[in-house]
């Protein structure tokens, strides 16, 4: 029953997304594209952090890789749609290459090692040896893809549909991945690596592959962002990008697919809201929002909503324990059996 419901709501959501650009002014269509782009980036992070248990505070690096692949190749005359798969392959490669050794690091060490990666990226992009390719600190412009002439769409609407198409495909793939056999293996590594190993799961290899897939998602998002923003520069990929992606993932709900969309909205919308609240203290207000969010929804907004729904469908005397169970995220046994 739950699955048909999920399917139905997914179809409703997609229909709503499809009609958006026809109803909204250009600027909001552009903002919606941005939200989708960040959602895809966060989805990659969720696969890694929420499902596989590897913390990354350096995913801005892969975002940058994807963006620069697009900027360089489109600058050399490649069509933008042909560049996207290439950006995916390159960022998968970079992610796998980095993830292979990094997967041996645990918890805090991994968090800090990936953080180091996010610090190194702007420096590397500015390096004189790469300047011929990256445009150095000046950055590069990317011409905006126009809609095919047979469609009555402007560039923003067309780009939105293009981003939407990629996002839906990637969300669908992520959903299938996490609910399948491989997905269970990936989660088993998070919950108990040693037990997983003894059950015959190739822990090290699967961790590295998950890192690669995660980097691929975020890289594709970076590639899309280059098309949406039409400009890449080292300053676009500072360590704050990695921090905001991380924050978006956790606040949306890192252990879910849908949480990524909420995270994307958070990244785009909340800084604008905090600025409306206080011009001079926007940073302080943002910080308070972060801490308050974690106080009241430690498993992220999606986790919070799910707990609310589950608490409703359960008998009253069970309620308090259900609420608590969600706080310490692993889903209790009876919960899982109820679902299947």
């Amino acid at each position, binding site marked *: 029953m739950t699955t048909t419901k999920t399917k139905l709501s997914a179809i409703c959501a997609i229909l709503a997304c499809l009609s958006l650009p026809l109803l909204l002014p250009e600027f909001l269509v552009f903002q919606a594209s941005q939200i989708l782009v960040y959602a895809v980036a966060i989805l990659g992070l969720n696969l890694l952090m929420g499902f596989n248990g590897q913390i990354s505070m350096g995913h801005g690096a892969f975002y940058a890789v994807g963006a620069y692949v697009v900027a360089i190749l489109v600058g050399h005359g490649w069509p933008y749609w042909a560049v996207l798969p290439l950006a995916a392959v390159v960022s998968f490669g970079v992610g796998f290459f980095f993830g292979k050794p990094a997967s041996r690091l645990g918890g805090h060490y991994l968090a800090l090692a990936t953080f180091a990666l996010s610090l190194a990226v702007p420096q590397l992009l500015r390096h004189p040896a790469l300047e011929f390719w990256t445009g150095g*600190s*000046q*950055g590069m412009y990317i011409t905006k893809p126009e809609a095919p002439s047979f469609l009555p769409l402007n560039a923003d609407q067309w780009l939105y549909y293009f981003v939407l198409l990629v996002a839906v495909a990637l969300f669908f793939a992520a959903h299938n991945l996490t609910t399948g056999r491989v997905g269970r293996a990936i989660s088993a590594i998070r919950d108990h690596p040693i037990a997983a190993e003894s059950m015959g799961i190739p822990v090290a290899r699967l961790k590295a592959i998950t890192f690669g897939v995660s980097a691929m998602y975020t890289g594709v998002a970076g590639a899309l962002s280059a098309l949406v*923003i039409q400009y890449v*520069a080292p300053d676009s990929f500072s360590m704050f990008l990695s921090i905001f992606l991380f924050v978006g993932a956790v606040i949306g709900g890192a252990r879910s697919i849908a949480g990524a969309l909420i995270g994307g909205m958070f990244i785009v919308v909340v800084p604008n809201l905090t600025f409306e609240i206080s011009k001079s203290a926007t940073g302080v207000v943002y910080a308070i929002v972060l801490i308050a969010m974690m106080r009241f929804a430690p498993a992220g907004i999606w986790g919070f909503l799910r707990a609310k729904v589950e608490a409703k469908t359960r008998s009253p005397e069970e309620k308090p324990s259900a609420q608590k169970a969600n706080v310490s995220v692993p889903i209790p046994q009876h919960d899982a059996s109820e679902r299947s």
Partner: protein
Amino acid sequence: MNMKFLHLATLALACVASSAVSAAEPGVTDKEIKIGQTGPYSGPASIAVALMQTPIAYFKMINETGGIHGRKINLISLDDAYSPPKTVEMTRRLMEQDNVFFMFGQVGSPAAAAAQPYLNAKKVPQLFSLVGTSRFNDPAKFPWTIGTIVSYKAEGILFGKYIKQKMPNAKVGILYQNDDLGRDYVEGVTEGLGDLAKSTIVAKVSLEPTEPTFDSQVLALKASGANALVIATGPKPAVYAIRKAGELGWKPQTFLTAGANSVSMVMEPAGVANGKGVITTATFKDPSDPRWQSDPDYIEYSAFMAKYLPQLNKNDSYAVMGYVGAQLMTKVLNDVGPNPTREGIRKAATSIRDYRPKMAMPDIKLMLTPNDYDMYKKLNFMRFNGTGWEPFDAGVL
């Protein structure tokens, strides 16, 4: 009777004309002109927040005295956290949602660069952005983009020429920030030295402004045997380098950029004794320089800051930059007349001749032509005497 009729007629005509304008030009009504700005209100670059606060306060002052051509100026200034994608988003919001007339004073070169193609494609003026890199002086490719800071490269060229003409045995060391700013200065100095560049530049050492200390770089420069040191960085590394050179007992002829020569914010923290003899160029009067304490410009500026921005440090050089930018903007809005159009704004801006905003150095004459968007045609050399900057005529150019 006749007179009255004529009056009424002109008034009616004016009304028709202005309403026609407001229909054609977004952001302009009979009562108001909406202008957009982006800048870092949050994040590590929020050090420059005065660049947004001062113009807002300045336009408030203008509005209190009746505005310009009867219209109030409404500057909508938004946070981009110094992140180029955010600048694009905020610029589009200002243009498409707030319907601003044009963009003014966008802060930072990566940010302004990100918004540049969009605004130029829409034929919207991007005026007086706070950027000094050469790509903002490109009327052929970006006719709608005009910067307001001295071009880094032009200043670098001047330093190069000075060294070439005045220091026959010079060995030049350059300490540069690894970004647009630093690279432009290195290019400028090299160009200014001309044929001597190869033989006189003995060391070029880069730094990242986020490094905690710059000891290693200064040591390397000292070891290169340089007797002239060009510091092509923002304020913080400059402070550090001047102090470190002093501590090392190294006394090269030091050159400092116009963006990093505040007495109270650079020279004093670096130690005034260490800074004696440093050469820089200036376009603005430094409010913390004792030389200007009884200058009419300074007195007016000081009163303005005390009345409208009492919480801000009036010695902040960003506040002066914002003040000068706001005056330029006010002049352009005055010059364009009662029926402004975007094209008219651009024309007015590129017709500025021999203009000296308050707080600009006494012999500054700003000049913008349709073919050259670098408004500073002449820079003053100054030397630090231990308490303030002393202008001197180097006879270079």
